[in-house]
């Protein structure tokens, strides 16, 4: 299941295999969106503060909008063979996969550096308790190691 959801499509797969993979991913995403929207709407209705209620409603609306967009795009993909083939080539091209992987790694490192600077700034100029946020960076590193270990076992 994890392989089907998260692994990049392998080069050499047929258009129908690619279509089946995308369909599986979209179905999973639809379930996740429905659950997230339901939970956030329920949480929003339980909030007393108008600020947190607005935040949760905005969050669920964003998820719903993004989800509808993804579903519409995938429907177009399923009904247009030429577009599907083009999309498959882009998804299975090994050079593009390598570029995406490198870009993601650089973005991840930059994100950690920016978070570190923001936490430093918050600790010195705002509140000393912000230093506890450093724990989040440690947790992200632990999460990264954990995901690598799991993927190494599965893939």
């Amino acid at each position: 299941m994890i392989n089907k959801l998260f692994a990049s499509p392998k080069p050499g797969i047929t258009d129908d295999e690619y279509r089946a993979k995308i369909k599986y991913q979209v179905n999973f995403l639809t379930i996740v969106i429905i659950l997230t929207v339901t939970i956030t709407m329920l949480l929003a209705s339980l909030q007393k503060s108008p600020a947190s209620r607005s935040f949760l409603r905005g969050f669920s609306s964003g998820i719903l909008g993004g989800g509808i967009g993804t579903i519409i795009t995938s429907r177009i993909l399923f009904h247009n063979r030429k577009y599907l083939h083009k999309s498959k080539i882009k998804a299975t091209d090994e050079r593009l996969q390598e570029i995406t992987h490198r870009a993601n790694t650089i973005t991840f490192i930059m994100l950690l550096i920016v978070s570190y600077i923001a936490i430093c700034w918050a600790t010195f100029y705002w509140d000393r308790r912000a230093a506890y946020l450093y724990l989040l960076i440690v947790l992200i590193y632990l999460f990264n190691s954990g995901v690598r270990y799991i993927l190494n076992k599965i893939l």
Partner: protein
Amino acid sequence: MINRIQELRKSRKLTQAELAAELEVTRQTVISLEKGKYNASLFLAHRIAEFFDLPIEDVFIFEGGKND
């Protein structure tokens, strides 16, 4: 690693886009391969050799320890 993709493609009067379509990769990948900026995986190398109907070692020439 050097390759003869450009030479073989031209000898068969194919454009980069046509070769890319045959190999199911993007045109940019064919350009990078021809310029030697990118080394093909074993799968793609096999596919290219199969397309040109040649053994892999006739398309890709390994130059000692160099890997660029």
